[in-house]
C-alpha cells in the first residue's frame, strides 16, 4: 500500500524520457554545465527523481536556482523533493518564498502529491505587475 502511494508522486515528478543532460550524470563538469539552463536543469532533476536519486536532484535544483533564483517551477520541484526526503520543514520554507507568484495547477499537483496537505502559496494580487 505504502509503495503504491509513493509511486504516484514519483510519476508526477519524474521525466519520462532521458535527456542529453541526464546522460551526463557521472561527470561533475557535465552536470554543472547541464544546469546552466533552466530547461536542461529541470530535465536532469526530474530524471534523477525518476532514478530515486533524491539528493542528486536536490543538488541539481540548487544549481538551477543559483542561476534562476526567480523561477517558480524549480523551487516548486525543490520543495516537492524535500518532502520526498522527509524534510517537510524545509519544503514549507521554500513554498513560503513563492507567495505572490503564479503557481501552475500542474506544478502544484506534483507538490501536493509529494507533500500532502500544505498551504498553497498566495496568488499574485490582482492588478499587480508580475
Amino acid at each position, binding site marked *: 500500500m505504502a509503495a503504491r502511494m509513493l509511486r504516484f508522486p514519483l510519476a508526477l515528478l519524474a521525466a519520462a524520457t532521458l535527456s542529453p543532460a541526464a546522460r551526463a550524470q557521472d561527470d561533475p563538469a557535465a552536470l554543472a554545465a547541464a544546469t546552466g539552463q533552466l530547461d536542461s536543469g529541470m530535465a536532469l532533476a526530474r530524471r534523477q527523481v525518476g532514478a530515486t536519486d533524491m539528493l542528486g536532484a536536490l543538488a541539481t535544483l540548487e544549481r538551477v536556482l543559483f542561476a534562476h533564483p526567480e523561477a517558480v517551477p524549480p523551487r516548486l520541484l525543490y520543495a516537492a523533493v524535500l518532502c520526498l526526503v522527509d524534510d517537510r520543514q524545509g519544503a514549507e*520554507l521554500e513554498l513560503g518564498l513563492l507567495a505572490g507568484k503564479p503557481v501552475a495547477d500542474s506544478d502544484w499537483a506534483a507538490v501536493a502529491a509529494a507533500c500532502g496537505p500544505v498551504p498553497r502559496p498566495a496568488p499574485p494580487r490582482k492588478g499587480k505587475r508580475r
Partner: protein
Amino acid sequence: MRPGFLGKATAAAAAAALAASPLGAQAVGVNAAVRNKVAIVGAGTKKARPAVVRERVNLNDEVRTAAASQLQILLLDRTTFTVGANARVAVDRFVYDPARNSRSTAVSVTRGAFRFMSGRGLRSPSGPASVRTPVATIGVRGTIFEGVVGEDAIRIASREAAVGGKVKAKKDEATLIVLRGPGPRATGDVRRGAVDVTVGAATIALDRPGLALYAPRVGAPPIGPFPISMEGLQALQSLLRTTAEPGGGGKKGHGTRDALLGAAGAAAVVGGGLLLGGGKKKGNQQEQEEEDKQPDPNKPD
C-alpha cells in the same frame, strides 16, 4: 594529507579538470555554481582567484565567500558541498576509488554557512565523510545537513528556546548543525540519513530532519539535540539561499553572477526574508548592505 585515487568512472571528468590546472595539484571536484563574490585561494600558490563555474577545485584550496555569496562544489563522487556567505572552507582529504568501492572525504569549515549533500556515486560507500569546524567534527552518514560557524551561529542559536541568549560563546568557534534529511518517511531508494557530531569527548547523533546541535565554544558542553525553529532554519537558509537581488544586481565585480543569471534573473526580486521576524531590514536588502561592508574575499585576511 593522503593522496586520492580517481576511478574509471570519473576518469573523463578528472582528465578534463587536470588538463586546466597547475601541475601536481589533486583535483577533488568542480565549481558547479557560483553566485556573487567567491574566491579560491590555491593551496600551492596562496594566490586568490575568482571562482569560475566548471573550474576544478583542488585538495586544500581555500574557498572564501563574501556576504550574499555562495558556491556549490560538486566533488568527483557527486557529493555536493554548498558554501554560504562569509565562509572559509577547504577540502582537506578526498579519496574516491569506485573500483575498490571506497571513498573518504574531509572538509574543514573555519567560518560561515555550509550545506553537505552526500553523493550517490557508490551504492555502498565504505569510506567516511566528515566536516570539521573549530569546535566539532561531524561524521556524515548519507545525508543532507547544514551548519554555520561563527557569529551567525551565535545569532541564530541564541534565538532558539533550547539555547537562549545567555550562553557564553566564542565568535570564532561557535557551531550550529542542523540535519535536513532524509528522514524515516523518505521516498524511494534513499537511505535514512544521520550525522554524528563529536564535541570534545561527547558524540551526539542527529537522526531526524530538523534536529539541531549547538556547540558554543571549545570546552563547553554541546546543547541539544533540539528541534530547530522555523525562524532558526529560515535564518540559516538566508545564508545559503539562492534568491534574486534587488535592483538588478548591476554592481561591478559580479560578472560571473550576471553571466549565470542573465538579464531576467538579475532583474527579479524574491523575498528572501519572508519568514524573518522583528522589525529589522530583511532579506536581500540587508544582505546587499552587508555585502557592501564586507572585505573583498580575493584579498588575504
